[in-house]
């Protein structure tokens, strides 16, 4: 184990996979000379050259679609889309093409493509650069959507994504890049489609993913000191979704709160709440609550941005409300 940042984990994984497999190549805007908008690909152009680290013009639909075609011929492209907001320019190629080809062509072609892209608000980037659109992709059969929260999972999930023969969207988060954590040395791969219980607890389950998981862990540790035992389930994989792990946790704790960075209506939390309603109804002592982003195009001004985004205080309040509603006495 070595303590490194989420950014370093992604970088090291890309490098390791490029060394391991000659067919892995990187495609994206400013990933070479500029070394990536968030420096995930720093140094890789110098090491692997422009054939394996391919800077593109600004044309998300074109270069994502080109990566699909390269994958059809057996390469394993890892595309960086500068932020998930810009993925909308490529959504036809992602949803109508990458997600469909294996099935629609009768299993005769594979699309081993990875799209890495960060989401998340809180950086004062205003409405068009602060969105959490992962649920748009998580809705689509044919795609796999991963959202690691820790450096270790970033390594394990990116490794799994690159070795997987289907199109995988790996959601990163601007607020996570500088977070640190222990990462297993050497080869480390995780099973796509599995959630992780990051902290066991008795009294209430918080379900989260990506940045929200880090917030949830922080809140859970602070509540521990008050004798409130919160279990944190990190989804890690939004499609497929590990419903069994979520329901098993709620059957134990009887209470659940979802913390999510996306908008509330039709969000990831809605799917989790419906899952719990079906899979753990008889065990529930209180309604499932969701702590999600306010439904506004995110404003630039800091006080408005802070007011709109889900945070530790909001999560703590909703956890307490849920416990109070069931006369929880610790």
């Amino acid at each position, binding site marked *: 184990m070595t303590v490194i940042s989420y950014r370093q984990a992604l970088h090291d994984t890309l490098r390791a996979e490029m060394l391991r497999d000659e067919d892995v190549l990187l495609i994206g805007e400013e990933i070479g000379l500029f070394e990536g908008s968030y420096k995930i690909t720093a140094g890789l152009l110098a090491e692997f050259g422009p054939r394996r680290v391919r800077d593109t013009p600004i044309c998300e*639909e074109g270069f994502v*679609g080109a990566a699909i075609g*390269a994958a059809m*011929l057996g390469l394993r492209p890892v595309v960086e889309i500068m932020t998930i907001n810009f993925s909308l320019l490529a959504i036809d190629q992602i949803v109508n*093409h990458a997600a469909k080809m294996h*099935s629609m062509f*009768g299993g005769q072609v594979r699309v081993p493509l990875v799209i890495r892209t960060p989401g998340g608000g809180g950086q004062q980037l205003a409405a068009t650069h602060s969105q959490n659109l992962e649920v748009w992709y998580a809705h689509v059969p044919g795609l796999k959507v991963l959202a690691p929260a820790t450096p270790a999972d970033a390594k394990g999930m990116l490794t799994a994504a690159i070795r997987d023969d289907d199109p995988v969207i790996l959601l990163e988060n601007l607020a996570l890049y500088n977070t640190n954590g222990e990462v297993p040395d050497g080869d480390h791969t995780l099973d796509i489609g599995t959630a992780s219980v990051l902290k066991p607890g008795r009294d209430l389950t918080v379900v989260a993913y990506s940045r929200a998981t880090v917030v949830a862990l922080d809140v859970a540790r602070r509540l521990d000191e008050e004798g409130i035992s919160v279990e944190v389930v990190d989804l890690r994989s939004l499609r497929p979704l590990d*419903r069994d792990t979520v329901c098993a946790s709620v059957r134990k704790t009887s209470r659940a709160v979802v913390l999510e960075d996306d908008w509330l209506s039709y969000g990831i939390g809605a799917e989790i709440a419906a899952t719990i309603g079906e899979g753990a109804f008889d065990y529930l002592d209180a309604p499932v609550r969701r702590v999600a982003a306010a439904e506004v195009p995110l404003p630039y001004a800091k006080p408005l941005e802070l007011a709109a985004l889900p945070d530790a205080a909001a999560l703590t309040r909703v956890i307490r409300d849920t416990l109070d509603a069931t006369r929880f006495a610790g």
Partner: protein
Amino acid sequence: MAEPSSTAVVGTVLGTTEEPETLRGYYRQMMTIRVFEQRAAEMYTKAKIGGYCHLNLGEEATVVGLMAALRATDYLFTSYREHGYALARGAEPVRIMAELFGRTGGLSGGRGGSMHLFDPQLRLLGGYGIVGGQIPPATGAALALAHRNGPGPDREAVMCLLGDGATNIGAFHECLNLAAVWHLPIVYVIVNNQLGMGTTVEAAAGEPELFRRGCSYRIPGQRVDGNDVLAVRKAARAALDRARGEHQPMLLEAVSYRLRGHSVVDPARYRSDEDNQRARALDPLPAFRAQLIDTGVLDAPAAAGIDAEVEQAIAEAVDAADRSPAPAPETLFDHVYATAVANTYQGLPGDPVVSP
């Protein structure tokens, strides 16, 4: 760097050096497409075929000329109007018709239908139902070729077909730009049948001489008479040779005229009687047959013999396609993913989401 050049080529006179057997073969292929499409239209009206069904009627010379130029090792991406290309590329008619019928014996196992024919052996990497959706993947296939090998006369190339309407989408321009800056071995072929659904090229395109649309990217363009099979073949061969030999993209435009509506169900009321007369006058099949007979390559009985053989073969293909079984509902979740992973939900409508 290539000079930005765009030249128009009007067509060729039937060459005397061409092997008669080759010419008769092209006639047979064109006739096969004609009869296949007529039978497809008929099967559609009998509800054997569902969804959309777009026919290559009137485009037979373009189809056969392009496919004759393509080597077996080259890759082909097409639009959704692609039955003829699959036929001329060498797919068995029964496998195409079975796909139209939605059967397991179809080129895509019945999962794609008319718009989504795929055959890895023929390097036919898909018909694409979204207008221009094939352009980015085709460009990426050329990227993979360039990634693996340098240029050379024996290298592979990609042919990307698109309709005239697709030259107005963003992805077309993005990909021409990518192909130019990345020096990709790809030939984009605009199959200009002069109508995008019911919209004319002139109404839709700021530069209606579509072969000129590569100018912004210094991609040379050439227009060819799409009703002249040999002219199409010649232009496509030259473009492909340049693509494989120099890793330079090219934009080719083959102009023909759609004989019927946009799809089988479109009566094409937006076309005048004059338009229809012009379409019939330009029909490449009777013209090519007359040329072959005039030059002694074929006589009328021989032509009739080919026609009868084609009719018979397609009739047998239709019957055989109808005997191919429909996919079983139990196979519904096959091929959604290539790599099986944990917790993939495979419930049918109304099934519980969580195992009790």
